[in-house]
């Protein structure tokens, strides 16, 4: 539970919002800076011109100049006085501010802006040249001079303003981020609510209640449809196998309880009152027979359980390569007594040895069960054909054909189900439990094969076993 959709979405939102805030701050700060700087430039230009206006020609005809500092413009930043210097091209330095720093280098490029720092104070500087002297009287016979003006203003205030603007934008961005996260959280919670509802509904599903009821707000969400659909399918599959298990359990209980009930009633009625020795003998004999039947049933059930366990890979067994024909002969031998008692002949046909990797006991059991079924449902004196075929090393195919009354179509789907008996009275007479074919199917499937039944009522039944080419590893 370390990762969550909510956390991921929030992280994405925070990341994007932070990037946005940072870029907003950058843009805002640089924009403010350039705008303030150009304003500063403009007013520095104006101040420089005001300073230039204070340069006057002397009254004589030399064309010399002097600086009239009575109308000196005030500094742009009252706390930090501006720096300026004025040079005339013939007279040299005309004036400079009182706070002129010694040794300040002034670049010689005309009309140039630059920044410098002096005594820890940052300045923006401007050089303007040539500037004509405004104080010009007509008719004066001297060559006019031009001025070169240097003007610098500290940028402390500008920087403070830029910083403030940046801080303001950043703060606004962060507030916006917080609001966005809150809204996103709310939105995500609301958006994920159908998931919670779905989980609640899913938690309500149990062995007693298989129905997954979908609230409207869940069924209407497109993204949840694959989830809900596969959940429903999974539930259906689970329910089916659960029902099968339950039915098996019910059938098994019934099959087990019947011989027990018979035995119990036999013994109880024996002790109800004094009986003759003959009656006791008969009762005990009957109980023994019932016990045998019970034992047989238990054995069948265990075989079935083992075959299924093995099919699901829960058991490990040692297998060997055997000939399928040999296992068929063994199986035929096993039910010889039954076949003889019903006067049924069994024909085995084959086109050569069929090697297969298996436990021979398993295959014998499968064949014996199929044969027993075929013999039981064949008329007295009938015949059963077993054909083992394998073409060019392909998968082995074993077919059992009888000529009995066949299986009605509505029973045919069910013959491999556990405890299924088409007609109970008849199977009771034939002595089956309805487990033989189920065991055969479980074993064949454990080897990766398939088993199928076709029947023509009145003509006979054909059981076909298809095995994989080599057997199980």
């Amino acid at each position, binding site marked *: 539970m370390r990762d969550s959709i909510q956390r991921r979405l929030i992280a994405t939102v925070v990341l994007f919002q932070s990037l946005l805030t940072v870029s907003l701050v950058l843009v805002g700060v640089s924009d403010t800076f350039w705008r303030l700087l150009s304003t500063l430039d403009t007013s520095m230009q104006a101040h420089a011109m005001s300073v230039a206006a204070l340069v006057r020609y002397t009254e004589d005809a030399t064309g010399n100049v002097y600086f009239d500092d009575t109308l000196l413009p005030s500094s742009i930043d009252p706390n930090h006085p501006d720096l300026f210097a004025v040079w005339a091209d013939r007279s040299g330095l005309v004036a400079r501010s009182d706070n002129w720093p010694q040794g300040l280098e002034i670049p010689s490029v005309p009309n140039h802006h630059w920044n410098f720092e002096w005594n820890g104070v940052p300045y923006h500087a401007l050089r303007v040249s040539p500037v004509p002297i405004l104080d010009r009287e007509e008719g004066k016979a001297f060559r006019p001079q031009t001025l070169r003006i240097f003007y610098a203003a500290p940028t402390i205030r500008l920087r403070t303003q830029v910083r403030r603007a940046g801080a303001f934008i950043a703060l606004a961005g962060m507030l916006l981020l917080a609001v966005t996260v809150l809204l996103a959280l709310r939105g995500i919670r609301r958006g994920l609510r159908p998931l919670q509802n779905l989980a609640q509904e899913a938690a309500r599903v149990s062995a007693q209640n298989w129905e997954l009821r979908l609230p409207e707000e869940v069924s209407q969400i497109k993204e949840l449809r694959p989830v809900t659909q596969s959940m429903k399918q999974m539930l259906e599959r689970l329910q089916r196998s659960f029902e099968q298990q339950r039915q098996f359990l019910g059938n098994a209980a019934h099959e087990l309880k*019947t011989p027990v009930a018979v035995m119990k*009633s036999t013994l109880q*009625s024996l002790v109800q009152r004094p009986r003759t020795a003959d009656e006791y003998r008969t009762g005990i004999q009957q109980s023994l027979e019932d016990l045998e039947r019970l034992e047989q049933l238990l054995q069948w059930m265990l075989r079935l359980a083992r075959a299924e366990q093995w099919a699901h890979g829960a058991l490990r067994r040692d297998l060997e390569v055997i000939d399928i024909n040999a296992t068929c002969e063994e199986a035929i031998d096993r039910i010889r007594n039954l076949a003889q008692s019903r006067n049924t002949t069994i024909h085995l046909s084959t086109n050569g040895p069929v090697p297969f990797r298996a436990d021979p006991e398993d295959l014998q059991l499968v064949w014996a069960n199929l044969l027993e079924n075929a013999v039981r449902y064949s008329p007295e004196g009938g015949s059963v054909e077993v054909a083992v075929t394998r073409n060019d090393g392909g998968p082995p195919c074993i077919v059992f054909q009888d000529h009995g009354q066949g299986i009605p179509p509505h029973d045919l789907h069910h013959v491999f189900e556990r405890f299924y008996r088409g007609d*109970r009275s008849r199977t009771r007479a034939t002595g089956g439990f309805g487990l033989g074919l189920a065991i055969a199917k479980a074993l064949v499937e454990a080897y990766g094969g398939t088993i199928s039944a076709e029947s023509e009522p009145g003509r006979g039944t054909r059981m076909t076993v298809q095995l994989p080419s080599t057997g199980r590893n």
Partner: protein
Amino acid sequence: MRVLIIEDEPRLAENVARTLRETAGYAVDVAADGQEGLFLAESNTYDAVLLDLMLPKLDGMQVLKRIRESGQHTPVLVLTARDDKESVVALLNAGADDYLTKPFDLGELLARTKALIRRGKGQPSPVLTIGDLQLNTVDRSVQRAGRPITLTAMEYRVLEYLAHRPRAVVSKTELLEHLYDYNWEKFSNVIEVYISGLRRKLDQDSEQPLIRTLRGQGYVLQG
């Protein structure tokens, strides 16, 4: 009393039938499949039906439903291997009066069958009292005015049936039907013998006769 057992396991049916005959003195018919069972149940009047659920030809549930659809009130005791809640509920809802899960105890089966028959005839107590006559259906003893009376098995069965229907006119045919299994026609003349034997033993020291004969109609047991 006459009971029908519908059970496809022949030995179980035989053991139950034997117990009912020997211990309770009931007449018992056995059917080995649902169809036969339904036919017997519809063509005879039984005092109780013991019904297995898993039956060939017609399953027990269907037999039960058809018996109830035909309007018979005969109490039905179902013998089932399943004791889960759903199937028990389904059984009782289909009209069963009681159920026993296999493997069951024959003593319990007997007690439940007796109780069902008793309740089916509106008798809550196992000791039936008609006037000064007392008939205990548990140990099959009879007393009149505190004096124990010894009866033969058949006399007891006749009296038990009459005692279950006090003050009602019970015809000879009805008695025969409920005291013998499907061969009852053979015994049509013996009822008078048992009735007269009963009269002799019951009315020995009493001025008031318990069993009256209504000519051409039957017998009435009245205190």
